[in-house]
């Protein structure tokens, strides 16, 4: 069964809506946009059926469509690969993607750019599916750049406002820095292997790279630079909070559930390269842990609901990378899987709130939404519980798997940092819940009276994703080999994590209990701070005003980047422009043009229309030429 149609459906949708969206009714646009992704979802199910019906050893299909380019010995086919890992990814992408498309058809229905929106969103689906299905680095890079482009287009979707356009530019530029790392990594791979095919590179990696002193570390680290850009890790995470300027479903789909996990997918895909370089693995975990702490701490004090969720996404991506670095690759992918459900659910919930409040996202101004928007509240609560890692919600299983992998691989300190992150996660999520949904409302009476809950299509998406957040964790129960179905499924691609753990299951359960307890404590603390004693946060903020300001201003990272990187580059560019370009280069060019025209004027003088003069000129030249030819020989 062909793999290709799964990407062709949304591509076709994007073309139809992009070219003719202006002439279609919104109804037609929605049918095309949502329907094309629906077809992809169906196709994914068919592919999945075939995948599971084939014998376990043969679950990897490569579909080569044609040779895309052939340069000397380097051959790059347009080939798609469907194995356990890409199966999981296309399942997440099409499933979550479909419900977010469905949600969008209501959420965006009053927007004049309805056709453009669905064209971009479908194009994103194509690029994302290409990214996860590609069979070589270059094809993956097309998807990689494609999702980046769509992200840029959708962040700046309401481009008439400067702040949105700037957020789009920021995302694009920061991603370019990461892409440069990815590209240079690819160059190194071509240099070392002479091929870009995943299978050839990964199977030959040990023999090729073992002899090299620096490539063995450089390649995984360079690829990881790409991952920090796309997956918003230190130091390139700064674009993601600003990316919330885009429409909320976009934040849910691209900036939470799928695109930002591309870096995680990529590292998992090429994990044999990482396994050869322990320092690179350590760097991945270190960056992941630092990112999860930094982002979670910033999220503690933010008041913008989507911004809290954005920092939470960065933080959860940090968990995923921490797992990858701890060689628990399938746990990283498992967290991608569960996170997609609950984070999409949370974002869509915040979108409903934003709709109801006409764009208001400041949780300090909300309160008491639970009574008016029960469905949104309950789904949001499920998402928050899952995110906080409360049993039996999905996040509990995936986060706990990661924490135990950290303990086993890097010892108690990294584990403790992860648990600290989990504590902060529970606190900031329930801070949002208590401030926004509980207590007395701080909204104006008129607004509050006219609040409306999610529309039917939105409700469907919310409920489905909330159910996913509830049950998707049960596919992997850590500490038990027979119940580790998820990593078992992936074991044909990714190695099973840490076998040592099974020798002593008791610490595993102890660790679980501790992290669960810490998360519950975080919720309790949030309850005390924001429902029981609402004056307390202010007092604490006063007490630790310096720390509070540090968090409130997000560690001044944007300002530091601005001063250290952006300003110098802008100054340098202005210098180059004014001095080198305008003065030297333009001057040179203009001088050349001036000289040329002057020469033209000279030629014109000879062309005076006097035939006697022409004859004289011709005769003189004739004489010179003939004399030269005759006598210079």
């Amino acid at each position, binding site marked *: 069964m062909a793999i290709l149609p799964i990407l062709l459906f949304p591509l076709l949708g994007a073309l139809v809506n992009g070219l003719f969206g202006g002439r279609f009714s919104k109804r037609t646009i929605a049918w095309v946009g949502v329907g094309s992704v629906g077809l992809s979802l169906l196709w994914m199910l068919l592919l999945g059926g075939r995948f599971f019906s084939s014998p376990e050893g043969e679950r990897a299909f490569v579909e080569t469509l044609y040779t895309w380019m052939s340069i000397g010995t380097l051959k790059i086919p347009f080939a798609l690969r469907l194995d356990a890992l890409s199966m999981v990814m296309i399942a997440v992408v099409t499933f979550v993607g479909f419900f977010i498309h469905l949600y969008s058809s209501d959420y965006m229905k009053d927007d004049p750019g309805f056709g453009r929106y669905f064209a971009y969103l479908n194009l994103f689906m194509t690029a994302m599916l290409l990214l996860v299905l590609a069979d070589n680095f270059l094809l993956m890079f097309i998807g990689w750049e494609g999702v980046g482009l769509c992200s840029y287009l959708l962040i700046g979707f309401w481009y008439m406002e400067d702040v949105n356009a700037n957020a789009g530019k920021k995302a694009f530029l920061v991603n370019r820095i990461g892409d440069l790392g990815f590209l240079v990594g690819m160059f190194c791979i071509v240099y070392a292997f002479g091929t870009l095919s995943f299978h050839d590179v990964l199977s030959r990696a040990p023999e090729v790279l073992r002899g090299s002193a620096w490539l063995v570390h450089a390649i995984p680290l360079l690829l990881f630079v790409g991952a920090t850009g796309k997956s918003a890790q230190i130091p390139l995470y700064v674009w993601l909070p600003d990316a919330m300027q885009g429409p909320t479903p976009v934040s849910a789909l691209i900036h939470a559930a799928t695109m930002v996990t591309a870096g995680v997918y990529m590292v998992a895909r090429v994990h044999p390269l990482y396994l050869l370089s322990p320092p690179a693995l350590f760097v991945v975990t270190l960056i992941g842990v630092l990112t999860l702490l930094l982002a979670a701490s910033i999220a503690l004090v933010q008041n913008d609901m989507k911004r809290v969720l954005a920092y939470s996404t960065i933080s959860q991506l940090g968990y995923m990378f921490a797992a990858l670095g701890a060689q628990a690759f399938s746990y990283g992918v498992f967290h991608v899987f569960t996170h997609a459900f609950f984070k999409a659910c949370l974002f869509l919930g915040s979108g409903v709130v934003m709709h109801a409040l006409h764009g208001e996202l400041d949780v300090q101004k909300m309160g008491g939404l639970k009574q008016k928007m029960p469905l949104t509240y309950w789904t949001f609560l499920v998402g928050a519980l899952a995110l906080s890692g409360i049993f039996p919600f999905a996040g509990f299983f995936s986060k706990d798997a990661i924490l135990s992998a950290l303990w086993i691989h890097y010892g108690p300190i990294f584990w403790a940092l992860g648990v600290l992150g989990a504590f902060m996660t529970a606190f900031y999520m329930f801070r949002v819940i208590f401030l926004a949904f509980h207590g007395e409302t701080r909204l104006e009476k008129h607004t509050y009276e006219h609040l409306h809950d999610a529309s039917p299509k939105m409700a469907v998406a919310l409920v489905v994703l909330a159910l996913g957040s509830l049950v998707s964790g049960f596919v992997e129960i850590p500490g038990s080999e027979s119940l580790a179905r998820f990593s078992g499924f992936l074991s044909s691609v990714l190695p099973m994590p840490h076998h040592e753990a099974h020798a002593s299951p008791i610490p595993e359960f102890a660790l679980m209990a501790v992290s669960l307890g810490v998360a519950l404590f975080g919720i309790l603390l949030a309850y005390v701070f924001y429902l029981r004693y609402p004056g307390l946060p202010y007092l604490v903020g006063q007490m630790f005003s310096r720390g509070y300001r540090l968090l409130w201003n997000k560690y001044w990272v944007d300002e530091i980047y601005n001063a250290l990187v952006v300003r110098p580059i802008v100054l340098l560019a202005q210098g180059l422009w004014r001095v080198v370009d305008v003065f030297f280069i333009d001057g040179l060019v203009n001088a050349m*043009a001036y000289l*040329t*025209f002057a*020469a*033209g*004027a*000279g*030629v*014109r003088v*000879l*062309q005076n*229309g006097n*035939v006697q*003069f*022409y*004859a004289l*000129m*011709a*005769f003189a*030249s*004739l004489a010179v*030429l*003939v004399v*030269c*030819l*005759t006598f210079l*020989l």
Partner: protein
Amino acid sequence: MDFRVGLVAVEVALSLLALLFILLGAWQRPNTSPTGAWAVAVLALIALGGFSLSSSGIDGVARSFYGLVVSDRLGAFLGLFSLISGLLVLFMSPAYLSREGIHKAEYYGLVFLSLVGGFFMFKAASLLTLFLGLEVLSMPLYVLCGLKRNFGKSPEAGLKYFYLGAFFSAVMLYGISFLYGALGTVNLEGLAALAISSNRHGLMCAFGLALLLCGLAFKAGLAPFHAWVPDVYEGAPTTITAFMATFVKVAAFGALIRILFSLPPDILPVLKPFGWLVAVLTMFAGNLGALYQTNIKRLLAFSSIAHAGYLLVGLLSFNALGQQGVLYYLLAYTFMNVGAFAVVIAFGQRGEENVTLDDLRGMGLRHPFLGVAMALFILSMIGIPPTAGFVGKYYLFAAALSAGMPVLAVIGVLNSVISLGYYLRVLVALFMMPEARAVIIPPKGFGAKVAVAACAVLVLWFGCFVSSPIAAFQGAFSQSMLQPGTIARLP
């Protein structure tokens, strides 16, 4: 060696038709148009073109007319180019000539006569045939240039062309006489015995050859003998300008090829530096001169000088690439140049037929068909893909590179850059400026539009489908008298 009329059938037919048209002119009533003559002329050129095309596949070399004329693939291709040029010019002629009040049957007779001369130039097997061909080509053109007797610049153009043409005919004949004196023959294969040295025989050879080549350089419009080109092209009726710019170039370059490839190989290194200098001078003279022109005809005249320079670059390479390039460029140049002049005719008006850049303002938007076609021709002249001009220029400069003349190739490319300075002004005027004319007379002339459309299609066609004509042109040189050793085997 005998007459063998079948090998000169095209020339004979053209001559007879020329006489017929001139006779018809005697009976033409005032204020009528010789539509019949035009129809016969068009049909005749189509038929002869078909005949040439079918005979362009011939292998080997044959001689006729008592050994004075040679028939080979090169001659067949050049003949085909000439007929194409003539046919395209005929298409745009009636409307233009009627507008200017000079639509006479003898016009067609003179055009055909000139064509005959051209055929004898590039099919010449002897220097005398070549000279006679040149004269038969030139005489009708002198008349045609001055055809618009009431328009001051036209007789002036005819007269100037005549004075200088006569001068250079004399120069050429003088050179031929020296060569005859030195070699004892006027046959082209006799040139193989040419030797340049410091003894008296060598000096005579060198002197004669120099004069002969200068005479042809004049006809081809190469610097420093190019001064007549702008004045004559500007003054002549526009259809004749187009005819001269394309057909005369084909004929002159054909004759140049015949002579250069008949020379003994040890002379070529001596000639090359001169050719190099002439090519550079020509390119600069054409492109620099064009920069200040505001009259389109004059601008295209200067640009045609520059194109002759590019052609010389390919010719000087003396390799297969250059040979293919010269033929390809001649063909491409025919289409883009005739097309451009046809557009000029379509936009022109009686009296002030000298369309200036100011007159063209905004016309591209008002008349999109003509505007876009003109843009296509201009882009082809600049050498931008996917046009025929790009392919031709690419071959010419690539030939120079592979022949070890990188400096010449670089100068050629630099000249292309300079040429942007005036070519783009045409496009700017057409598309990016507000209309300037107070009264707009819609372009007339169905025939001119047919010519424009045909040229546009062919410019694109030969810009996209390159391989089969290139292969055919490769055969043109290998299956011709020019190949070493061929002459010795002639019957």
